[in-house]
C-alpha cells in the first residue's frame, strides 16, 4: 500500500465536486450562466486531477495505490480508507469523463430548477467516485446510499412524464437491496474481527455456510444495481424517464457499481461461495442476455430500447465475472468500461435528437441520415460498437468474455453468443428505422449537431476506436489485480494464460 503522489488525490476527487455542489446551491438562481460555468469548471478540473491516476499508476503490483487512511469513528473501528487498484482505476476515470459530458449535454435542455440540477450532478459525481475508491465497508456504504438521494431527485424532478413512478421504483428497489447488504456488512464486522477495513476482513476465512449467507446479502444489493435478472425491472423505467444526464449516469456509472461490488467484495470475501454459486450466476446472466435482447426487439421507445439493451449487455459483464477466470473477469471489467462509453454515448445521442423533436418514439423518426448526416455517422459508430463489430471496443470486451465463458462452460458460452446476434438485430433495426427509410414529417427542419454536442460525443468516439484497436492500454491496468483476485479465489491455483499476451500475439 502506498501513495506515490504524496497528495490526497482521491479525497480531492471526491470532495471537489461535493464542495462545488454546495457552492452552486448557494448561488443566486437567476445567474444560470455562472451556475453552469462553475459546474463545468469543477467537472473538467476533476477530470484533469484524475489523469495522474492513469499516468502514475503502478501496473506491476496488485496492491492498493494512492492510499489514504485515517480514523473516523474509532469506537466502531471505522476508517476513512481510500485506495484504488487495477479493478477500480478505470471506473474513476470513466466517472470524471462522463460527468463533464453530462454537464455539456444538459446545457440547454434543462430549464427548470437549474441550480438544483447541477448541484445534484456534482453530488452524484462525488459519491460515485467515493464508491469506487472506498476500502472501508462503512464508508463504502455511506457513498453507496448517499448517491440515492440526488439520483432519486434527478429522475423524479427532471425526468419524463412518468418520472415519479420511475423514481420511487428505483429508490425502493435499490434501498431494499442496500439494506440487506448493510446487514451483511454488520455480520462481516462481527465475524471478521470488528473492523470494516476490507483488506483486514479479507484475511479471514469464513465458514462456507456464512459465506453463502453473506454472498446472498451482498447479492441483493449488487444484483439490483447491475441489474441482473429477475430484479432488473426498475431499470427500463428509470433509464427511460430520467433526463439525458440521468440516463448517462445510470447507464454509464451507476449500474457498474453493482458489478464492481461483485469484484471488490463478493468474490474476494466469499471465494468458496462464489465458486459454488458461479454456475447459478452464469445462468442468470445468460437469461438476462437473451431475455433483455428479445425484449429489445419489441420496443417502440428509443430510450427504453437502449435501456433493455443494458440489461443484455450487463448480462455479459456478470457472465464474464462469474466465469472466474482471467479472460472472463478482464473482459467483464473492460466491457463495463465499454458499456459506459457506448451506452453513455447512445443516451447522449438520443438526448441530442430528443432536444430537437421532444419525441422518443421510434415511429416518429425516419430518414434522419439526410437531415443530420454528421450525427448519423456518430450514431452508426456507437451502434456498431454496441453490436460488437471488430475494430470497436465492444468486440474486444465481448470476445474476452466469451473466451472466459467458453473455458468455464461450453453450453453457456453457446447460449450467450446468440445474445450477440439478437443484439445486432435490434440495434441495426433501430438504426434503419431512425436514420433510413422514408423521411418523417417531424424531423424535416431540424439542424445537425452543433459544436457543443459534437465535442460532447467526440471523446467517446475516440475511446470506442482506441479500446477497439489497442485495448492493451486499458487491460494492462487490470492484470495484476485480477491475477491476485483469482489467486485469492483458487488459493493460488492459476490456470490461464496472461490475457495481454494473447492480445499481443505472444504465446
Amino acid at each position, binding site marked *: 500500500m502506498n501513495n506515490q503522489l504524496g497528495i490526497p488525490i482521491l479525497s480531492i476527487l471526491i470532495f471537489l465536486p461535493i464542495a462545488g455542489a454546495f457552492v452552486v446551491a448557494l448561488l443566486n438562481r437567476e445567474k444560470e450562466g455562472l451556475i453552469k460555468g462553475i459546474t463545468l469548471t469543477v467537472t473538467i478540473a476533476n477530470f484533469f486531477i484524475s489523469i495522474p491516476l492513469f499516468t502514475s499508476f503502478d501496473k506491476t503490483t496488485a496492491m492498493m495505490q494512492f492510499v489514504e487512511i485515517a480514523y473516523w469513528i474509532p469506537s466502531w473501528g471505522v476508517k476513512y480508507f481510500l485506495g484504488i487498484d487495477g479493478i477500480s482505476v478505470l471506473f474513476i476515470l470513466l466517472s470524471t469523463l462522463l460527468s463533464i459530458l453530462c454537464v455539456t449535454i444538459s446545457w440547454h435542455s434543462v430549464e427548470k430548477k437549474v441550480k*438544483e440540477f447541477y448541484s445534484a450532478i456534482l453530488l452524484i459525481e462525488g459519491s460515485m467516485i467515493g464508491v469506487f475508491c472506498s476500502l472501508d465497508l462503512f464508508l463504502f456504504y455511506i457513498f453507496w446510499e448517499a448517491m*440515492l438521494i440526488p439520483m432519486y431527485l434527478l429522475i423524479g424532478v427532471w425526468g419524463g412524464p412518468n418520472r415519479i413512478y420511475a423514481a420511487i421504483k428505483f429508490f425502493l428497489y435499490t434501498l431494499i437491496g442496500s439494506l440487506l447488504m448493510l446487514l451483511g456488512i454488520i455480520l462481516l464486522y462481527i465475524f471478521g474481527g470488528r473492523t470494516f477495513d476490507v483488506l483486514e476482513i479479507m484475511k479471514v476465512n469464513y465458514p462456507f455456510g456464512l459465506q453463502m449467507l453473506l454472498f446472498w446479502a451482498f447479492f441483493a444489493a449488487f444484483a439490483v444495481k447491475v441489474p441482473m435478472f429477475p430484479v432488473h425491472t426498475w431499470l427500463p423505467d428509470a433509464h427511460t424517464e430520467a433526463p439525458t444526464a440521468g440516463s448517462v449516469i445510470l447507464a454509464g456509472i451507476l449500474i457498474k457499481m453493482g458489478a464492481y461490488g461483485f469484484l471488490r467484495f463478493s468474490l474476494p470475501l466469499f471465494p468458496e461461495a462464489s465458486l459454488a454459486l458461479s454456475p447459478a450466476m452464469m445462468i442468470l446472466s445468460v437469461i438476462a442476455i437473451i431475455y433483455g435482447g428479445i425484449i429489445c426487439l419489441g420496443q417502440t421507445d428509443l430510450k427504453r430500447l437502449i435501456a433493455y439493451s443494458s440489461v443484455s449487455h450487463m448480462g455479459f459483464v456478470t457472465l464474464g465475472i462469474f466465469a472466474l477466470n482471467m479472460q472472463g473477469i478482464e473482459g467483464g471489467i473492460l466491457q463495463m468500461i465499454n458499456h459506459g462509453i457506448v451506452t453513455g454515448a447512445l443516451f447522449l445521442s438520443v438526448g441530442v435528437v430528443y432536444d430537437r423533436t421532444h419525441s422518443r418514439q421510434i415511429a416518429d423518426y425516419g430518414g434522419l441520415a439526410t437531415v443530420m448526416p454528421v450525427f448519423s455517422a456518430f450514431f452508426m459508430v456507437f451502434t456498431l460498437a454496441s453490436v460488437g463489430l471488430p475494430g470497436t471496443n465492444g468486440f474486444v470486451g465481448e470476445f474476452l468474455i466469451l473466451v472466459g465463458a467458453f473455458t468455464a462452460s461450453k453450453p453457456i458460452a453457446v447460449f450467450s453468443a446468440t445474445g450477440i446476434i439478437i443484439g445486432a438485430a435490434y440495434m441495426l433495426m433501430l438504426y434503419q428505422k431512425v436514420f433510413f427509410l422514408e423521411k418523417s414529417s417531424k424531423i424535416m427542419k431540424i439542424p445537425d449537431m452543433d459544436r457543443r454536442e459534437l465535442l460532447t460525443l467526440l471523446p467517446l468516439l475516440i475511446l470506442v476506436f482506441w479500446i477497439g484497436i489497442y485495448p492493451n492500454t486499458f487491460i494492462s491496468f487490470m492484470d495484476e489485480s485480477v491475477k491476485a483476485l483469482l489467486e485469492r479465489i483458487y488459493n493460488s491455483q492459476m490456470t490461464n494464460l496472461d490475457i495481454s499476451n494473447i492480445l499481443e500475439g505472444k504465446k
Partner: protein
Amino acid sequence: MTPIPFPDLKPFTSELIILSAGLFLLILELFVKNKTVLSAVCIFASICVLFVLSDTQGITFNGMFVNDLYSMYFKIIFIINLVMTVLISINYIDREKPDRMEYYSLLLFATSGMMIMASAKDLVVLFLGLELMALSTYILAGIKTLNIKSNEAAIKYFMLGAFSSAFFLYGLAILYGLTGSTDIYQISEKIKTIEPSMALVLSMIMIVVAFSFKIAAAPFHMWAPDVYEGAPTSVTAFMSIGPKAAGFAVFGRVFYVAFDSIYTEWATALIVISIITMAVGNIIALSQTNIKRMLAYSSIAHAGYMLIGIITATGDSINAVLHYLLIYAFMNMGAFSIIILIEGGEQIKNYNGLAKRYPLVSALMLVFMFSLVGIPPTAGFIAKFNLFMSAINGGYLWLVIIAVIFSTISAFYYLRIVMNMYMKDNISDSIVFLNNSAPLAVAIFISTVMVIVIGVIPSLLI
C-alpha cells in the same frame, strides 16, 4: 418512633429546578402579558439543569430515586425536547390562541414527570412520575378548548391513558404480592428466588401493556394518530419524543433489572409487539393525507425499531436505543418545526410544488425526511445502523431483517413528502405561506445541524 430524616436533595436538583420553574411560571403568567418572558424562563431553567446535571449523581429518598448515567442521558433528551418545543411554540401558540396560558408550566411539569420516571428506582415513584407526565400532557393535548379536534384528542388520550395506568397498577399490585417490595432492585433479587408462576408472567404482561401505551406500540397505539392530529402541533412534537423516551427509560430499567430472570418471557412478548408495531406503523402511514397523522404512524414504527434494542437487552443495544432516541428527537423536531413554519402544513397536498416557492424550506424538510428513512449521510442512518448492529450482535438477525423490510416500506411515505415538494406542481387552491419567527428558525437550525453533523461525524455521539 424516630423522625424520618430530611432527604438529600442533591440528586433531585434537576427535577427541583424544572418543578419550581413551573410553579414560578404559574404565578408569573398572571402578571406578565408578554409570553416571550415565560418561554425565556423555561429555557433558562433548562440550561441550569444541563449545568448541574453531571454533578448530581446519587441515590436519595431512601433509595427510591436514583440519578445515574442512564437517567442522566434520558434527562438530556427530555431537556432537549423541552427547549426545542419551547422554541417552536413561542410564535405558534400565540397564533393558536389557547384560552388559558398554563401552557409553559404544563410543559415543565410534564418534563419533570418524565425526569422522575427515568430516575425512579421504585415502582411507586415511577407511577408518580408517570402520572405527573400523563396528566400534564392530557391537558396540553386539549389546550385549544374551543377546538373540537383538540378536545377529542384530550379525552381520548385521557381515557386510554387512564386505562394504561390501571394496567400498570394491577401489574404493580400483583408484583408486590409476589415479592413484597416495590423497589426495582429488590424485586429483581426476589424474583430470582421464586419459581416463575402464572401470576408473575401476568404482572409482567400488565406492565408491558401499560408501557406500550406510553410508547404507542401496537396494538396499544390507537390513541396516537387522533391525539397527534388533534393536539396543537407544538404539543404533538413534544409528545412524539418526550413520553416515548420516558416510556423507553422505564422499559429499560424495569425489564432489564426487575424482570431480569424471566427474560425469555418478556422478550417473547416484546418481540410480538415489536413486529406488530413496525407493521401497523409503517403500513397504515402509507395512506395518510395529514402529515401529523403520518408522523404519528411513523413514530409508532420507530418505537417498533427501538423495541428491538430493548429486546436484545445487551449494554450495547440499550446504548443504541438511547442514541436512537436522541437522534429521533432532533429529526422529528425538525420535521414538526417545518410543519409549524408552513401555514397549512398539516395537509400533505399543500406540499405540492413547495420547492419552487420555498427552496430552502423544502431542502431542509428533505433532509429530515431522508433522515427518518435512515439514508446516509444523515443522523437517522447512524441511529439505525447502531441499533441494528447491536441487535445482530445480540443474535436477533431475523428480527432485524423484518425491521429492514419495514423500513424500506417506510421510505415510500417519507419520500411522498419529498415527491410532493419537488416533483409535483402546485394545483391545490389553498394558500401556502410561511410563518417565520426567530425562535422557530433557531429550532430548525439546531435540528438541521445536529442531523447532519451526527450523520457525518458520528464519533461525537458514539
